[in-house]
């Protein structure tokens, strides 16, 4: 199968038109000593039906969430995806377009991104949002970069309950830029206010806290704000579970300077972790220091409303080495998906989404806590995830659940050895009471008679 339409005869005619006999004549600028004098060692071409069979086979070696009952979150969340979302996102006028540099023929995507920016402001309570970034982890990195500024120095305080992968990504960039990352200890699963207070100095450029945090716990975000803003540091709230914004206070309401997070679960498939959708929103005063694309409303030469990419003088293709960021794309198609998704859920639906996650997770947590051998690690409030101390090593609990067709919670021992044997369970609106009861029964069985009191 080839997507090159022109036949050999047509190509021959075209060669003649440019005064060449063969393709080789056109490749002469490439010196002999760098030429590949063999065919690429790749598998031979496959016809569409053969390829479909191969790909279906590969895909079926994975346990997808339509066939396994999953209670895994830990940064990536399974939410209901209404059919209307993929149908609209798959319109090829959207997905086969490039960055809307020619606004006259890109009004559709531009307007959708303007709507996206508005929706992100509405759910976060912030003043302005960009057109999106790569993913949640890099969005948090960009928040830190904004805070440390062009000099790239200073301290960034990070809660130990920020997603471990986000902390790892921050560490990579901190080393490159030269700012210092300091981790703030936890107290009962939440960022320790005492440790935070002690760590804040005039050198602190930003404090990064996740809400709900990686361990599922709700941080005392208002108290943290008081501490952070006693200094000149920026208050960065990271969000990996945006469905929480259906019921939880918006970061804008408790004084966040930047909200950075992951929006994939609002309208896009999990996709083994990518593509993802970096959300970035901030206060008006940081607008011109904000990384990434922005769409603005304007008028055309006939006085009609229209939309354009704007404030591009911050960007790499204009500023080159003086750009605020090297990012030259957004995740436009996922931003579109989130726009359609939030419109489809709407005001009531989004609130219900948050409420359902919250109530289902609490039902699950209370019933798991009632099984002998399983104890909640923390007593603090949570949203749709909670950490449970397990009677067996979580590796064994996970294996036993897999045998029963269940994807269990996240094994916390690797990232948080100090917590002992512990698993982080996630229950969203996709899990019915029957599903949860199956998990409870399985956990009971796995604990075995030794733990029956």
């Amino acid at each position: 199968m080839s997507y090159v339409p022109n036949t050999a005869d047509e190509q021959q005619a075209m060669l003649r038109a440019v005064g060449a006999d063969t393709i080789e004549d056109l490749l002469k600028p490439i010196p002999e000593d760098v030429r590949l004098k063999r065919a690429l060692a790749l598998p031979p071409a496959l016809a569409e039906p053969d390829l479909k069979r191969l790909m279906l086979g590969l895909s079926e070696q994975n346990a997808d969430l339509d066939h396994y009952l999953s209670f895994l979150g830990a940064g990536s969340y399974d939410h209901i995806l209404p059919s209307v979302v993929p149908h609209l996102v798959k319109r090829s006028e959207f997905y086969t377009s490039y960055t809307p540099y020619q606004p006259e023929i890109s009004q559709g995507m531009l307007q959708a991104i303007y709507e996206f920016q508005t929706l992100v402001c509405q759910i976060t309570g912030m003043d302005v949002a960009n057109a999106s970034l790569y993913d949640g982890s890099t969005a948090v990195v960009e928040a830190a970069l904004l805070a440390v500024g062009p000099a790239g120095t200073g301290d960034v305080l990070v809660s130990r309950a920020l997603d471990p992968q986000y902390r790892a990504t921050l560490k990579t960039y901190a080393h490159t830029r030269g700012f210092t990352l300091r981790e703030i200890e936890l107290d009962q699963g939440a960022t320790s206010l005492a440790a935070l207070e002690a760590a804040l100095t005039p050198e602190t450029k930003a404090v990064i806290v996740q809400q709900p945090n990686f361990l599922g716990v709700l941080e005392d975000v208002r108290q943290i704000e008081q501490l952070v803003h006693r200094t000149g540091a920026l208050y960065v709230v990271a969000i990996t579970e945006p469905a929480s914004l259906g019921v939880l206070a918006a970061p804008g309401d408790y004084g966040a300077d930047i909200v950075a997070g992951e929006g994939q679960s609002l309208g896009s498939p999990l996709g083994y972790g990518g593509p993802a959708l970096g959300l970035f929103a901030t206060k008006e005063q940081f607008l011109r220091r904000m990384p990434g694309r922005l769409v603005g409303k304007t008028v055309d030469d006939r006085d009609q409303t229209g939309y354009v990419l704007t404030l591009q003088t911050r960007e790499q293709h204009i500023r080159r080495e003086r750009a605020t960021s090297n990012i030259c794309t957004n995740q436009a198609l996922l931003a579109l998906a989130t726009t359609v998704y939030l419109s489809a859920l709407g005001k009531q639906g989004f609130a219900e989404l948050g409420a359902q996650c919250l109530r289902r997770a609490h039902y699950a947590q209370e019933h798991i806590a009632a099984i002998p051998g399983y104890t909640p690690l923390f007593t603090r409030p949570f949203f749709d995830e909670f950490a449970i101390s397990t009677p067996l090593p979580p590796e064994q609990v996970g294996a036993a659940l897999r045998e029963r067709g269940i994807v269990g919670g996240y094994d916390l021992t690797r990232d948080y050895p100090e917590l002992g044997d512990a698993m982080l369970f996630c229950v969203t609106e996709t899990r019915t009471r029957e599903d949860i009861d199956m998990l409870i029964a399985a956990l009971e069985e796995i604990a075995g008679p030794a733990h029956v009191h």
Partner: protein
Amino acid sequence: MSTESLIFEKGAPGRRCSTLPALDVPARPLDSLVPAELLRAEPAPLPEVSEIEVVRHYTHLSQRNFGVDAGFYPLGSCTMKYNPKLNEDMAALPGFARLHPLQHESLTQGALQLLVELEGFLAEISGMTRVTLQPAAGAHGEITGLMIIKAHHEHRGEGHRDIVLIPDNAHGTNPASASLAGYTTVELKSDARGRVDLAHLEDVLAQHQGQIAALMMTNPNTLGLFDEHIVEIARRVHDAGGQLYYDGANANAIMGITRPGDMGFDVVHFNLHKTCSTPHGGGGPGAGPVGVADHLVPFLPGPLPAKGSQGYFWEDVGPLSIGRVRANCGNFLVLVRAYTYIRTNGPDGLRHVSDSAVLNANYIMRALQDEYDLPYDRTCMHEFVFSANRQKKNDVHALDIAKRLLDFGIHPPTIYFPLVVPEAMMIEPTETETKETLDNFIAVMRQIAREAREEPSLLTEAPHDTVVGRLDQTLAARKPDLRWQPAAVAAGDS
């Protein structure tokens, strides 16, 4: 077509589209579960619209958007080739799309196998040893590659190397990425044939002895020209202790013909959304895997997918690794599409892709060079750059030519880039266009050249047939309006 109102201006209070399943657990008051101060006082003020309104609205928006499926898109450096429908279907398979990134390896063997094989394919195409699939886009690949180079120098006790050389025709992301990585950039001049000026390179290397960290280069470069001095350039930069970074933006020209590894490059990033036909999605998602030569493998971000005796697994990387550059394994569903594309084409097919891309570009260039200035009159690779200097005499600019093309249902070339060509128009037809499409473009460009001479207002007032005319960019930047506000709030604001 009239303007389309915003989704916020549609619907009515109480209207719903998607609803959730009934709650089958106790509906306890929310403030009995979470302290009230952590809860929202009011629901987020999202739209209240029905399904038909959502569908009509975004369908209308799609009709106000131009994509490759709608017409010719010769946007230089962006490789706007056809996006095969098969790839979309494969990426939508539940076994790929409905997969959680942290699932146990035993439940993701197919995904891991695909990643291991794709890494091998990309290593073979580029002539590199190993490839990380983590980076989300080309620019993300650039910063990753530069971090790897930095770690390499630091490991050798040469962390003081602080200069990255970048040719004057490079993509803007190159200097931006180098700055982000903490490097100072030094611009290399091009010679009269559009290549790196070897004498200038020599001067710069001598002037900054012991300071050179890397040279970032695109080859073929953004003029669409292959720099035949590449082996010599690589030798000199290596002799100066620098590493060679290959910006893979133009890799569509070279598949199966030459490989960055064989040219002497140490690091390569791919743009799978260009070379491997994954859709650009209106500006993303893309994927920017980074390949490295042997000596840089220890510095790759991790974990890396691997095959062991017990099957496929995520292999931790060693202490020299730069660490993660993002969460999870990369833009997996983009990688699935790229994998499908490579398997569809096979080795001969990929070679045919590059051959045909080069032929199509030369075909247009030769057919139009009597009407448009061609600053570098050489056989081009997959793209080339015209200048609208001749048209400028009639007060017609590259921008006007671009806008006039819109009236013919053709996406304009990249304009005003590369910066070394005044009034630049960078044209990349790609291999997936028919001869008729190319001939039509040639005819349209000839007509526009004639109009520029005879009736320039047709160009300067273009476009005439689009849903909106030229937009006021200055107003947009001077009074940024970046979000909708309810009328009352908006009024109070101003």
